C-alpha cells in the first residue's frame, strides 16, 4: 500500500492540500458542512508547529488570519453560508489591504440557515459580490478529491502571487464524500512562497508600490520595515489618502490585478469538447453528474462534451466563448437558480442557445435530471 494514498473526506483533502501548500495558521468557527476542516487542522497544525485557533465567531476568525498573515504566515479559514456572510466586511479589508489569505466556503442550502446539511451551490454570486464597494475576487472550486487537493494548493499560490484573498467554494457533496486521494510528493506541485521585499533596513520600503511584474513584495511585521496597513484608501506607504488620483489608482490596481490576469488565474478541465455539439458547463460536485452523462452518452454517439470550471471568478468569458463557438447547445449544470448561467449567457453572446439543468431542493443533481433537460433542448420531446 502506497502511504500517499488516502481514502478521506473532501474536507480533509482540503486540509491536506493546505498543509502541502504550507499552511501555518488557521482560525475558524465551526459550521456544517465545513467543520471537519477545523477539526482536522486542530490536530494536524500543531504537529508541524503551526497554529490552530477557534475564535469566538466567523468575523474574528477572518480578522485573525489577516493579522497572522502579516507576520508572514500562510493562513486559512473555513466556513459555510451564514459564516461566509459574516466574513464579508473583513474580507473586504483583506482585499483593500492586499493581504494573502484563503477562505473556504463549503456551501450548503440557503438563504439563511436554509438546509445546513444539504448540497447547494448558491453562493457563487455572493463570493464575487458579497462585500461592499468595487473590487475583484478570485474564486476557485473543484469536483473531485485529486482536484480539490490541487486547487487548494493553487489557492495559496494565487493568494501569494496577487496578494489577495482567494475563496475556495466547495459544496457539501465534495466536502463530505470520501474517495481516493494520492498525495503528491513534496515539490511535485510548485508552491508560490511569500515574496519578501529585498529593500534593506533604512531604505524606504513601499508596501503598496507594485514591482515591474505587478507583484507587491511584503515585509513581515516584526521586521525592519515599519509601515501602515489600513482599510482606508491609502498611498504607497499604506497611509490614508483621499487624493482623487491616489484613490483612483488604488481602485484600478485592485480590480486590474485580477481582471488583467484572467488567463493566468483561469483553471478548467475539458472533456470531449473537440467535436461537441452540446457543451455542458459545470463545476463542483454537479460536474460529476454532468461528466457521468457525457461519458455514458458518448458511446451512443451523442456528441456531448463537458467544460468543468475550476476558476469561477474572474469569470473566463473569452475562454468559454471560444470553447462554445461550435456548440449548438450549451447546458449549464448547477445547483442554484442559474448563477453561472447568467455569466455563461453573457460569455457566449447569443443567450438563446444556453440552457440550464439545475436543482434547488437540497437533493444532489442526478444524471437523469440532466438527461431530462437534454431531451427537451435537443428536441426529443419532453
Amino acid at each position, binding site marked *: *500500500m502506497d502511504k500517499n*494514498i488516502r481514502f478521506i473526506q473532501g474536507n480533509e483533502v482540503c486540509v491536506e492540500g493546505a498543509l502541502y501548500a504550507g499552511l501555518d495558521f488557521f482560525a475558524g468557527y465551526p459550521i456544517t*458542512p465545513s467543520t471537519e476542516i477545523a477539526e482536522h487542522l486542530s490536530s494536524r497544525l500543531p504537529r508541524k508547529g503551526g497554529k490552530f485557533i477557534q475564535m469566538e465567531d466567523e468575523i474574528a476568525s477572518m480578522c485573525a488570519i489577516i493579522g497572522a498573515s502579516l507576520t508572514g504566515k500562510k493562513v486559512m479559514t473555513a466556513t459555510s453560508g451564514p459564516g461566509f456572510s459574516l466574513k464579508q466586511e473583513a474580507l473586504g479589508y483583506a482585499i483593500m489591504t492586499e493581504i494573502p489569505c484563503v477562505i473556504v466556503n463549503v456551501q450548503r442550502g440557503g438563504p439563511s440557515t436554509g438546509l445546513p446539511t444539504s448540497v447547494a451551490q448558491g453562493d457563487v454570486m455572493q463570493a464575487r459580490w458579497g462585500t461592499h464597494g468595487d473590487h475583484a475576487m478570485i474564486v476557485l472550486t473543484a469536483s473531485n478529491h485529486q482536484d480539490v487537493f490541487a486547487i487548494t494548493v493553487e489557492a495559496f499560490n494565487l493568494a501569494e502571487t496577487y496578494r489577495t484573498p482567494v475563496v475556495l467554494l466547495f459544496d457539501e457533496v465534495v466536502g463530505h464524500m470520501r*474517495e481516493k486521494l494520492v498525495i503528491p510528493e513534496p515539490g511535485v506541485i510548485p508552491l508560490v512562497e511569500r515574496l519578501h521585499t529585498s529593500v534593506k533596513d533604512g531604505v524606504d520600503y513601499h508596501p503598496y508600490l507594485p514591482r515591474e511584474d505587478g507583484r507587491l513584495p511584503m515585509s513581515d511585521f516584526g521586521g525592519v520595515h515599519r509601515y501602515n496597513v489600513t482599510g482606508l484608501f491609502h498611498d504607497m506607504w499604506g497611509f490614508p489618502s483621499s487624493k482623487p488620483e491616489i484613490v483612483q489608482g488604488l481602485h484600478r490596481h485592485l480590480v486590474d490585478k485580477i481582471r488583467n490576469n484572467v488567463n493566468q488565474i483561469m483553471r478548467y478541465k475539458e472533456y470531449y469538447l473537440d467535436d461537441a455539439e452540446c457543451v455542458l458547463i459545470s463545476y463542483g460536485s454537479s460536474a460529476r*453528474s454532468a461528466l457521468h452523462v457525457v461519458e455514458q452518452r458518448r458511446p451512443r454517439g451523442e456528441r456531448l462534451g463537458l467544460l468543468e470550471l475550476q476558476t469561477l471568478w474572474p469569470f473566463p468569458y473569452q475562454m468559454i466563448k471560444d470553447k462554445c463557438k461550435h456548440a449548438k447547445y450549451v447546458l449549464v449544470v448547477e445547483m442554484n437558480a442559474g448563477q453561472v448561467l447568467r455569466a455563461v449567457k453573457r460569455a457566449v453572446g447569443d443567450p438563446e442557445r444556453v440552457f440550464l439543468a439545475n436543482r434547488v431542493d437540497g437533493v*444532489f443533481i*442526478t444524471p437523469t435530471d440532466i438527461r431530462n433537460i437534454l431531451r427537451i433542448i435537443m428536441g426529443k420531446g419532453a
Partner: protein
Amino acid sequence: MERCRMVFSGSGGQGVITAAIVLAEAAVLHEGLMAVQSQAYGPEARGGATRSDIIIADETINFPKVLQPNVLVCLTQEAYNKFYTIIRPGGTLITDTRYVKTQRKADALQKEIPMFETVMDTIGKPIVFNICMLGTLLAITEIIQPDSVMKVLETRIPSGFLDMNREALGLGMQLGAKYK
C-alpha cells in the same frame, strides 16, 4: 469488475457508517479499486434511519450517490421501511432477523440473516455487529478480500480489540456463506 452500488442503513449507534467507510477504504487502499462513500447528515440522521452509500468499481466513479443499490443492507425496521423500495431489481437485500420484519415485496434476493443474534451468541458484544455484517456481505458479494478489511481495521482499532473484530468478520463470512 462490475460496478457495485451499495447502501448500508440502520440506526445511529449500529456503526453502519463505519462499516461503509472501512469497506470502501479497504477497496481503495488494498485492492487498487476506486470507491466513493457518502452518508446522510442532518437532524434526520440523528434520530431516525442513518444511511451510507458506497460505490466500488475499477474505474473512475463520477456520480457519487446510489439511487438504486445492487446491495441494500437494512439493520433496523425503520431503515427497512424507508429504503427497501430503492433496491435495484434483481439486487440483494440483506436484513437482520432480530431487528427487521420484511414484507415480501421487493424484486430482489432477500436475505434475512441472524447477524445480531449470532454475534451476541458467540461474542456477546453488540459493538462488533457491524463488522459481522461486513463479513456476511463479503461472503455474499465477494467484492473484496476479508484480509483487506482487516488491514484497515488494524489502522483504526486499538490492538486489544482486533481479535474480537477478526472473529466477528469471520463469523459474518461463515453466515454469509450459508446464505449465499
